[in-house]
């Protein structure tokens, strides 16, 4: 059933694309159907999973590698799965309005569903390697979604950054997962968690560090957080879905998955504690600086991701509950906020806070939605966000009560400060966009009011988030408790309540709201202060510097190795090959080789062919023009063809003949573009050049001769030819042995070769359409115009270093 769900989603992706959904606005209902169905099925699993019966499915994939498609629906998987498909349903519905009439809508659905399937596979997977495959699937679809508006440079840049950062982390993650899997002797996640002593194994610190890299890059932790704001160039439904509600939580999810086995390690604790609290502070402080609604929300997302990492450092039931509630609350308020930003963008043509004001009057329903979501984000009772914040503070105050002052102060302080700035940021957004009367700059005007269907998904999610806490008694047992149990590794009973009395935590909550309002009131000086920070401090700057340095390094290496003209470059390659063979000859004792015994005297035909080849070669050297040189070279090639015929290899002969024909054509065409070497054309090479080239030619002749000779006389093991001859017909059912070898017995090789061929074609295509061509054309036109029609046009010229 799990595999069926994944298949449904995977199949929906191209299907929705092919249906050309932009033709009808009501298509949103259909587009939301597959994920809604999967959501409903998962809801039906809530009760059995709560009782501890997990749905498990296993399919062999590459068993020798330890790779199998193992799916396991435990509490955590179900919790994340519900968020993925539940929010996905709303996003799919919203997309129909967001991309109304846009022909690219179908392609967006394709990517959206491909992502949803990968993400669901990731959280359901019970195999480390399968999890990695799905992980990379989310990275790729995220890349394509960020670059969706590929006509904008910001989109392409942001997408590339996100891809490089997340896949670099992905590589580290793969290494870490493989190390862990080898150490545990199993790649099954449930098996790994049950392996005794895995936390104390010698390889675990290395493996964990690598896994941290993967999780932190994916979940935008410091210092990798910079890709997330850049990802906001994606269409808003993708930002709401991937870059706040689901994909960025993949790293968090992985950490939560591994939590039961490793949470007692100091490495785990301190890494997560420090990274999480710093990211949390950084994100919440940065958020208020931005006037782009999506950028503000993106930094707030970074803060929440940091908060989640911080919570995973701890080992208390408060922290588990805080983690689960925060994930749910964040998904339910941040996705609607993003969706609303998209609606504002649609309706006003901008989402820049400086140009917005008074939307509360023109879009009242949207204002209600955003206000409710903002209350949840600010943690005002009785929303789910309030509960999340209470639990966060509880888990921070716990170490304080136990006397661990440093840890407690760090966690509690970071949580308080960050919550306070978040309140300031969201109040800023709410006030500036919806409630103040006059914008800072010339205000944007309302293009067209959004329909109810456009706003419905955001409103639905917000209501769930705002009112979910009121039904906390049933929600916690049904939804939260199984997830917490998976985190803790044992069944846990939850007693979440909205009202605890006047505890220190509640008082802190009140203080946060008050101070947050103060931050909101002081937003202008704060923005000025943050904007005056030097750019060198941001990790985006560091990243860009690194990438630029890499480009410069590559450029230097390339000019160093390949900067010279073609002839010297080839000479280096050929001479080193010849030297290697000479070295091999010097090492082996020549006398011991049974040299001439096995050689026969050539026949008359062979003598004649040799003379013909020599004649062709000499003509090539002595040729005055390049065209005659090429033709003479063709004679040499044809002689080789005849050799093949004489020795009874018609296939080779045929291939050689055809290659010769096409090769000559290509040579002619290439030489047409390359500026002639004046020395060669005039036949007046300096004597030193001639001598060095003679030496090179002799070395190459020796090389070819030696290779053939060695091949002939050194028989290592049994020859494989008889095997091919015997089995060609019985296995490959063909009497042409060469062909059977190529397409059947050694088909792998051929597949590799044609892949190389195809890549070479792409490379050549790119190379030959390089900017030099139009440049050349323009230069010639210019020259012709200057000289007038009567005068001789200039001969074609091309820069070297191109071929």
């Amino acid at each position, binding site marked *: 059933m799990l595999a069926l769900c994944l298949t449904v989603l995977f199949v929906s992706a191209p299907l929705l694309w092919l249906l050309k959904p932009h033709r009808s606005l009501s298509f949103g209902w259909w587009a939301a159907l597959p994920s809604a169905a999967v959501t409903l099925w998962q809801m039906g699993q809530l009760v059995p999973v709560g009782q501890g019966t997990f749905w498990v499915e296993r399919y062999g994939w590459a068993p020798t590698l330890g790779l199998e498609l193992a799916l396991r629906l435990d509490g955590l998987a179900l919790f994340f799965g519900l968020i993925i498909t539940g929010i996905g349903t709303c996003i799919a519905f919203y997309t129909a309005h967001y991309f109304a009439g846009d022909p690219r809508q179908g392609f967006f659905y394709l990517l959206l569903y491909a992502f949803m399937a990968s993400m669901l596979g990731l959280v359901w997977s019970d195999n480390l390697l399968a999890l990695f495959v799905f992980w990379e699937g989310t990275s790729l679809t995220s890349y394509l979604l960020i670059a969706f508006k590929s006509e904008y440079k910001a989109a392409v840049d942001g997408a590339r950054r996100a891809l490089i950062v997340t896949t670099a982390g992905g590589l580290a993650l793969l290494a870490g997962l493989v190390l862990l899997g080898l150490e545990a002797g199993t790649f099954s996640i449930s098996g790994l968690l049950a392996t005794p002593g895995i936390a104390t194994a010698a390889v675990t610190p290395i493996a964990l560090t690598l896994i941290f890299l993967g999780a932190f890059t994916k979940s935008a932790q410091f210092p990798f957080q910079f890709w997330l704001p850049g990802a906001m160039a994606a269409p808003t439904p993708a930002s709401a879905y991937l870059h706040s509600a689901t994909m960025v939580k993949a790293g968090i999810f992985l950490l939560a998955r591994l939590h039961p086995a490793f949470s007692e390690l100091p490495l785990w604790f301190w890494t997560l504690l420090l990274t999480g609290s710093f990211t949390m502070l950084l994100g919440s402080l940065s958020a208020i600086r931005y006037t782009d609604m999506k950028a503000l929300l993106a930094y707030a997302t970074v803060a929440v991701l940091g908060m989640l990492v911080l919570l995973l450092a701890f080992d208390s039931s408060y922290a588990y509950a805080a983690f689960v509630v925060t994930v749910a609350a964040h998904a339910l308020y941040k996705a609607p906020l993003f969706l609303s930003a998209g609606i504002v963008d649609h309706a006003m043509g901008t989402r820049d806070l400086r140009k917005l004001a008074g939307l509360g009057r023109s879009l009242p329903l949207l204002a209600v939605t955003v206000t409710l979501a903002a209350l949840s984000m600010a943690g005002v009772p009785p929303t789910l966000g309030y509960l999340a914040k209470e639990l966060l503070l509880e888990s921070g105050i716990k170490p304080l009560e136990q006397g661990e002052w440093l840890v407690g102060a760090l966690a509690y302080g970071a949580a308080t400060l960050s919550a306070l700035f978040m309140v300031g940021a969201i109040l800023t957004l709410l006030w500036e966009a919806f409630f103040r009367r006059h914008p800072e700059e010339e205000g944007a005007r309302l293009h067209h009011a959004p329909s109810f269907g456009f706003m419905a998904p955001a409103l639905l999610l917000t209501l769930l988030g705002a009112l979910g806490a009121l039904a906390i008694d049933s929600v916690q047992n049904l939804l939260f408790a199984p997830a917490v149990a998976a985190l803790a590794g044992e069944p846990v009973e939850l007693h979440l309540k909205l009202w605890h009395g006047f505890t220190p935590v509640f008082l802190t909550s009140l203080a946060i709201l008050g101070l947050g309002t103060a931050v909101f009131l002081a937003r202008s000086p704060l923005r000025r202060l943050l904007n005056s920070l030097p750019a060198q401090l941001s990790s985006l700057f560091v990243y860009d510097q690194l990438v630029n340095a890499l480009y410069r390094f590559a450029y230097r290496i390339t000019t160093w190795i390949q900067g010279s003209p073609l002839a010297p470059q080839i000479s280096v390659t050929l001479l080193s090959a010849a030297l290697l063979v000479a070295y091999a000859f010097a090492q082996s004792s020549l006398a011991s080789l049974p040299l001439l015994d096995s050689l026969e005297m050539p026949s008359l035909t062979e003598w004649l062919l040799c003379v013909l080849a020599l004649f062709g070669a000499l003509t090539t050297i002595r040729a005055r023009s390049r065209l005659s040189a090429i033709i003479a070279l063709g004679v040499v090639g044809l002689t080789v063809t005849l050799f093949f015929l004489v020795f009874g290899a018609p296939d080779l002969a045929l291939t050689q003949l055809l290659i010769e024909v096409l090769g000559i054509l290509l040579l002619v065409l290439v030489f047409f573009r390359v500026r002639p070497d004046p020395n060669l054309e005039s036949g007046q090479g300096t004597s030193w050049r001639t001598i060095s080239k003679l030496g090179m030619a002799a070395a190459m002749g020796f090389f070819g001769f030696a290779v053939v000779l060695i091949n002939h006389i050194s028989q290592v093991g049994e020859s494989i030819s008889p095997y091919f001859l015997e089995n060609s017909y019985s296995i490959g059912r063909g009497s*042409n042995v060469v062909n059977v070898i190529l397409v059947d017995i050694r088909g792998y090789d051929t597949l590799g070769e044609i892949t190389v061929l*195809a890549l070479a074609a792409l490379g050549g295509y790119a190379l030959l359409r390089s900017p030099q061509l139009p440049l050349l054309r323009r230069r*010639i036109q210019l020259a012709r115009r200057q000289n007038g029609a009567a005068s001789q046009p200039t001969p074609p010229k091309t820069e070297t270093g191109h071929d």
Partner: protein
Amino acid sequence: MTEIYLRLVDRILTPILLLIAIFLFLRGHDLPGGGFIAGLVAAAAIELTILALGSTATRDRYGPWLAPLLGIGLTVAVTAALIGMAGGGFFLGRWIQFEVAGETLKLGTPQLFDLGVMLVVVGMAVTYLLRLSEAAEAATPSAERQEPRP
């Protein structure tokens, strides 16, 4: 426009060469020939058209097929290799045999794979030839193109 005799040669020889390519491909499993060779022959045939009609006209004729050819070829090859998977192995040949006019014809996934090879070879060779010809034509002023180079 190029010389009339070249165009005549193209008119007559190109179809024949393409037929030869198909012929070589079909007999390839038992007699000299096969996808690689057939691909080269087809590329030579197309080059003849390039020489006769110029790259623009050739691109008009083959262009829409050219870019996807590499991809199609690779896909066909991989598909042929994958078909064996159901029988228990990558590259495991699957064969069908039938009688046509007394002759036994056999078709199998190795030949399908060979078709992929042929398509990739044609795509690669023609990509290069067309690009280089375009470059050469761009470098030659049209008035001079008919005259032999000094």
